[in-house]
């Protein structure tokens, strides 16, 4: 993800309506690139290209 975490993280938190302290937001900004990089590896798995997600949905309760 190319967006600047220092911009993106506070924006996402605002959108979510949650208000951490400045220190906590700074920690989230610091953590963000590592998580984003780990998530990117999930898109690099060839076998996942046409795989279905393991989600639970049933037409009846």
């Amino acid at each position, binding site marked *: 993800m190319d967006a600047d975490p220092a911009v993106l993280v506070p924006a996402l938190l605002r959108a979510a309506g*949650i208000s951490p302290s400045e220190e906590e937001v700074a920690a989230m900004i610091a953590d963000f690139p590592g998580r984003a990089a780990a998530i990117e590896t999930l898109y690099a798995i060839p*076998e996942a290209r046409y795989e279905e997600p393991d989600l639970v949905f049933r037409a009846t309760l």
Partner: protein
Amino acid sequence: MHLTITDAAAALRAGKTTSVELTQAAYAVADAYDGELGVYLSRFDETALAAAATADAELAAGIDKGPLHGIPLGIKDIIATDEGITTAQSLVLDRSWGDQGDAPVVARLRAAGAVITGKTSTMEYAIGIPDPEKPFPIPRNPWNPEHYPGGSSSGTGGGVAAGMFLGGLGTDTGGSIRFPATNCGITGLKQTFGRVPKYGCVPLGYSYDHIGPMARSAADCAVMLAVLAGHDPRDATSVDRPVDDYTSGLTGSLAGVRVGVDPLLDRSALTVPELAEVLDAAVAELRAAGATVVPVELPLYAELTTTTMVGMAAEAYAYHRPDLRARWYDYGAGTRMAVSAGALIPAGDYVQAQRVRRVGQRKIAELFAEVDLIVTPTSACGGLKLEKLTFDDIIDSLHTPYWNALGNPAMSVPMGFTTDGLPLGMQIVGRPFDEAAVLAAGHAYQQHTSWHLRVPELVAHAPAA
């Protein structure tokens, strides 16, 4: 009070003890050490002793409900019980949530004659790290109270190790049964996803959560699972299939069993040097029990671990968002930071994680065509020091979240100690719904070793049952 459930059940039937004596001894240990170890959030002395007296009367009258009859057990305080409030060790959880009464797992234990002694400490909402700023006990490791007992099923782990009950329930979303099991030197099983219903349990990650047994031995976990397993339609992910016989296969032999071993030594910066030798010795015992051992490499290790962390955060966030908005500072710092990570994960990435889980299931099934069981260390090290504890270090040290992505049954059994005297665990994993093979391997290992019977020095002279 350091009996296994199996030994206590035999002693009850031999007239060598009573359920009331077992329960009183368990509470005596708690009276002596709970102030230091932070095991209980609430105790049910009156109802437990009444249940124990009933069990004694029933057994005397020839009414035998099975091996849990009259056995004192602790329940992690994110699981509802008839006796009182469930807190999830949080100021946030609505105190009326637990008014529904016994969760199915608790009802099943009670129907089997178990004595419910109380509710045990947890990380808040089963995630995060201990928070000294909140009005809840800090769980400490009975092997060294300056160290973490593991979490989030901290109280059940520490309580079994200390002898405050003979077994109990934990929950496991990324390792929260196996982590305190390894740190506290006891046995803990995360069975196949869906095998045990989780209705009546505060959710963390809906598609990763498990409720499972924690006790001294694999045989004890087997008798508990036999009671816990089975379909309940109130849990959408509960699986409707017959429950296997988990105890008849506890023969002590692994003849003909193929075990794949992945030491995972380079997967954590926190790996202690002695881990390799301790694991080698444990694997040698499996070989001595008759197993054929081959090296394996877990497929997509980092990626599947990521899918657990991403999926758990996203699913937990959906549950917590209203309270995170309204009551941010009522949450503990570790919990609110871990759960709010879900706000930063795009929906598409969550779905991609679920696609990768499916790929992982195919790859691990291919590996399980070559071996019957897979063995790894449960964790890279012993319990971390409480004063330096971080959530990142916990995640880095654990080899458990991988299996929550896949759903396979995975059990931690004690396999030795670090040079600092802290327990280490071996993780034994089987094919989906093959808990019987996992338990049989753990039992065979424990017939050749006595790590699971070791008692922390702190409580070694506690009142005996």
